[in-house]
């Protein structure tokens, strides 16, 4: 059956049609080819001719830009030939300069294996030697010296690079010949990881300059709303942006499917996914279903198989699960079967979202909004061969953003992608990265501001006062007593806690996450598995857990206190004043609830010390007039509380972040604002990661979307689809939906 045939089938069948909120047809577009650029080496041109490969316009544009000496960020969809786009320019460089080297940085190890294979093939076919090699934590010690001396194309990841830089003497030859840096899947570098990464790249460039090289950049990324700004923040360079893909696509149908559409007969997101997957496979469409967790991956594949057993048992074997934790050989086997078309339906965690090559499929199912529009299009991009039709189905969960999109398909399909935010001013991250830099080459404030910004002299003084660096005629020299790169983590700011199950480490958390998700007595979810936390080893920062499913889950109760340290900027709004500033947050996790099906079965107390940290916050101070928008019969406290939840819930709509990245506090009488009612929203990381700053800028838009999200929800007094927050420390009490809508309306004016 064809894709459009199946679409008709779904629409005719009342079992499904009642739940379809919207169908969007994304029209096909033909390929946009370009002639073979002249700069390519003869051997490459011959190869293209021999294999009858025509380049797409974006590949040509990338080659031209790199040849012209520009840095490039390429934002085109999955499977548009990015690898070729970044390799071809380097082949030209390599042809001119036999010993030029390139460094390719991938956010995940699995990607490097896949890419190495592709590059080796290309090397063989064109006869131009690149000597590619992977250099990461798995590279055996005895292979390392040879790779450093001989490799022309090194594939690595940020964590390894962080460890490599202090050893630059051993890499001096490689760095002095470095002409080309590739950052693949660059959109992964955001939040704390992104800020660290941008400074890590500056450390790398500083060392390159020391060895006399100045490499070009090639960034590849998913589509972003702000590629130029993002690239320049990440690398400190202005880049040529290439966004228009020349790769062809067939007609694509995007279905928004809402199991909660019939409130009288709501269905489970997962059983619906399994059911639809089995229908797709039964009608001969090769399909991929993304789920959020390992556990659901297994369950959905099992249910889909069962459902197929009833329909056409001979096909049940062609459905399988694919997730992290499988052996590499099992995964490769699945990838191979999928490419050959033997495997017809695959259920996967987000592991497959990253650019692993599995070929293209007919249909993709997403169980729940994956959190960002960027992921939506990356996942949807897995379906769609160049000529034939394809289908993507988003099955909504019962949470505010999913339900908002079901009611607003036009928002879903027309809106630009999110902004990727990188904050290079976070003083904690900057301080750590300066420590690492000072262990690589002496840091000279008068020159190195070029890499690390003008704010570093104060930072350096503070490090000096703590005997971590020493001033010398050559600059500041690292004198700390532990290896700097060991001390500083790329993905976490505060002290790292590890979760150990039978002395095997399964996860690392920061203190705040640990209190929230892994306090003593908590049921911790890790990749879909449940673990009981038995105790905390404070001395070693270790959390001891065991694998066990007690049949309930836990939610922590906390209280938040905020003191304002500095008002950075403010402006007057209709309802009062909007302020951006530095605050001191203290979160006290004092107890937790054991819950089954959203019902509390018992409440336990916790004796953890409060966590205090300094961060950036945006807050609204209500004037007397502003608060009058809430009519007298409504509860002001509940209205403020609801508005706080709604605003935080809508943040991921605008900015690439998770709602857990933000914290909030609303109070009717804040001593920090002369006793006025206040809503605080703050970055949940020490020093801030730029989210509150962005919220300050897009405030009106944020309020507008929050209001329509709450207002249009059909519940009466608030529900998980609007103003309930899964992370509320007060058990979502009090909440007042009507008052909240009135308040949000006043805020957006």
């Amino acid at each position, binding site marked *: 059956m064809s894709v459009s045939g199946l679409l008709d089938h779904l629409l005719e069948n009342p079992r499904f049609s009642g739940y379809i909120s919207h169908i969007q047809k994304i029209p096909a577009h033909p390929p946009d080819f370009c002639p073979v650029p002249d700069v390519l080496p003869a051997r490459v041109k011959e190869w293209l001719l021999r294999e009858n490969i025509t380049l797409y316009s974006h590949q040509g544009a990338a080659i031209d830009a790199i040849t012209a000496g520009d840095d490039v960020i390429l934002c085109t969809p999955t499977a548009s030939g990015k690898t070729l786009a970044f390799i071809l320019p380097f082949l030209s460089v390599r042809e001119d300069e036999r010993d030029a080297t390139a460094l390719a940085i991938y956010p995940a190890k699995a990607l490097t294996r896949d890419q190495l294979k592709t590059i080796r093939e290309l090397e063989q076919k064109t006869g131009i030697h690149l000597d590619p090699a992977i250099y990461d934590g798995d590279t055996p010690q005895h292979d390392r010296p040879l790779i450093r001396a001989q490799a022309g194309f090194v594939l690595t990841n940020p964590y390894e690079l962080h460890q490599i830089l202090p*050893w630059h003497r051993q890499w001096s030859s490689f760095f002095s010949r470095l002409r080309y840096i590739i950052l693949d899947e660059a959109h992964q570098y955001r939040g704390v990881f992104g800020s660290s990464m941008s400074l890590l790249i500056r450390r790398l460039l500083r060392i390159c300059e020391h060895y006399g090289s100045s490499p070009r950049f090639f960034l590849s990324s998913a589509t972003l709303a702000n590629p130029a700004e993002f690239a320049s923040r990440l690398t400190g360079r202005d880049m040529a942006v290439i966004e228009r893909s020349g790769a062809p696509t067939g007609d694509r149908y995007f279905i928004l499917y809402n199991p909660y559409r019939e409130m009288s007969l709501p269905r489970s997101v997962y059983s619906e996914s399994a059911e639809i997957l089995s229908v797709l496979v039964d009608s001969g469409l090769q399909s991929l279903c993304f789920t959020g967790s390992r556990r659901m991956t297994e369950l959905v594949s099992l249910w889909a198989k069962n459902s197929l057993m009833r329909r056409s048992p001979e096909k049940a074997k062609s459905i399988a699960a694919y997730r992290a934790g499988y052996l590499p050989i099992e995964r490769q086997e699945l990838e191979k079967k999928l490419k050959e078309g033997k495997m017809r339906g695959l259920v996967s965690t987000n592991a497959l979202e990253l650019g692993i090559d599995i070929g293209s499929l007919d249909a993709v199912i997403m169980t729940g909004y994956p959190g960002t529009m960027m992921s939506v299009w990356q996942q949807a991009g897995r379906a769609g061969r160049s000529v034939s039709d394809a289908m993507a189905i988003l099955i909504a969960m019962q949470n505010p953003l999913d339900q908002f999109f079901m009611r607003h398909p036009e928002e879903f399909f027309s809106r630009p992608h999110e902004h990727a935010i990188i904050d290079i001013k976070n003083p904690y991250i900057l301080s750590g990265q300066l420590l690492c830099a000072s262990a690589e080459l002496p840091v000279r404030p008068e020159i190195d501001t070029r890499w690390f910004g003008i704010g570093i002299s104060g930072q350096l003084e*503070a490090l000096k006062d703590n005997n971590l660096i*020493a001033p010398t*005629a050559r600059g500041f*020299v690292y004198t*700390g*007593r532990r*290896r700097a790169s060991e001390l500083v983590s790329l993905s976490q700011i505060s002290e790292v806690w590890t979760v150990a199950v039978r002395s095997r480490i399964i996860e690392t958390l920061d203190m705040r996450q640990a209190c929230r998700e892994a306090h003593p007595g908590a049921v911790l979810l890790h990749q879909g598995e449940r673990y009981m936390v038995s105790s905390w080893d404070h001395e070693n920062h270790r959390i001891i857990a065991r694998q066990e499913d007690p049949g309930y889950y836990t939610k922590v109760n906390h209280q938040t206190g905020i003191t304002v340290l500095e008002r950075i900027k403010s402006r007057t709004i209709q309802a009062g004043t909007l302020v951006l500033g530095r605050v001191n947050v203290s979160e006290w996790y004092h107890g937790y609830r054991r819950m089954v099906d959203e019902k509390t079965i018992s409440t336990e107390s916790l004796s953890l010390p409060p966590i205090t940290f300094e961060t950036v916050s945006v807050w609204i101070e209500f004037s007397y007039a502003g608060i009058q928008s809430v009519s007298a019969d409504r509860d002001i406290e509940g209205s403020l509380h609801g508005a706080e939840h709604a605003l935080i819930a809508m943040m991921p709509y605008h900015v690439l972040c998770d709602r857990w990245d933000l914290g909030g506090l609303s109070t009717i009488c804040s001593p920090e604002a002369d006793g006025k009612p206040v809503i605080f929203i703050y970055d949940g990381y020490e020093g*801030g990661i730029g989210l509150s700053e962005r919220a300050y800028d897009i405030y009106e838009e944020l309020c507008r979307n929050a209001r329509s999200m709450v207002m249009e929800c059909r519940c009466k007094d608030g529900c998980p689809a609007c103003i309930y927050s899964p992370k509320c420390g007060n058990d979502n009490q009090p909440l007042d939906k009507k008052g909240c809508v009135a308040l949000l309306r006043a805020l957006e004016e």
Partner: protein
Amino acid sequence: MSGADLAGIGRRWQERISASPEYSVVLHDNVFRQGISQYPVQESVFHSQHRLLTRLCQDYDGFSLEDCFSGTALTNSEGEYYVIDSSQDAPSISVDISGFKSLLKHELTLVRGIGPAVSAQLKSRGCRTIDNLAYMRRYRSAASCIIEALSGDSVEIFRLLSARKGAAHPFSLLCSCLFPLSKFRFVDIETLGIFGRPLILIGLGYFEDGTFQVRQFLLRDIGEEVSALIAFLELIPDDAVLVTFNGKSFDIPYIADRLAYYGLPSLPQVPHFDLLHPSRRLWKREISDCRLSTLEKKYLQISRSEDLPGALVPEWYCRYMETGNPGPVVPIVEHNRQDVVSLAYLLSRLGVEWYERLRFT
């Protein structure tokens, strides 16, 4: 973020460092637990050292570093540096050169294509030296290469032996007798850590007019590291010969890393005798560990009165940096000087032992 509590951030790093010291104290000196930690310090040693540190800090309170050592401040292009010179009787380093060369001539396995089995076979057939091999059609060209190399200069012989036998082989060590005494540079460094932190003291020993001179470059502050490195580099001529203990893995790469850190020229590529490996080969059945202090006690009749475990050096030097009290540096300097002197005696002893042993096998 402007106006953030930068001092607090700096303090936090320091707290994180102190939360995990670079050595661990082994309670009750339990030898069975010693293997578990990476840098063990026995509890009794830790306490006696702590008492020593307190005493030194009291004794030297109010003194300046220059008062404690009869050193000299010198200046070069990078600024001031501080050296402490001492001299003493030189150990006699004498291996019979012609005897050694004749040993080599009898080592048929130096020739490419000949392993231990073939060598034994050839010897049983009366072919005893490499010179004999040169008359055999099969080995002629390979053997003449070796003969030519062996008649070349000392560096060439050293390279040949390292390549054919490995740098840790006693033959490579015995090569040291081919170099004039004046070329030897005995090197030992003290640092603030295992990797990536400043070195604080470079000890350099050399022979001069029948005496053994030790020149120590001591950093009075970290700013003197560059000038000390340059001054040290000037004393390593291109035809020098380095002698260290575990210097192949530690001292020499460490110095190279520090030179690269400051963008200075690198060390010349010269023959390097690391005494750790030949010592271990020679004595491994007789000793429990192969630390320099263990060898001193057992084979060199050198005993140290108040010796400082290497793991404590960073902490003690940091104490000096923080307080300016030179007390904690005193044992570091003495420890380093003794290490350098022991190197020379160890080389002498190893040469004799290995020569005798090889001669009779």
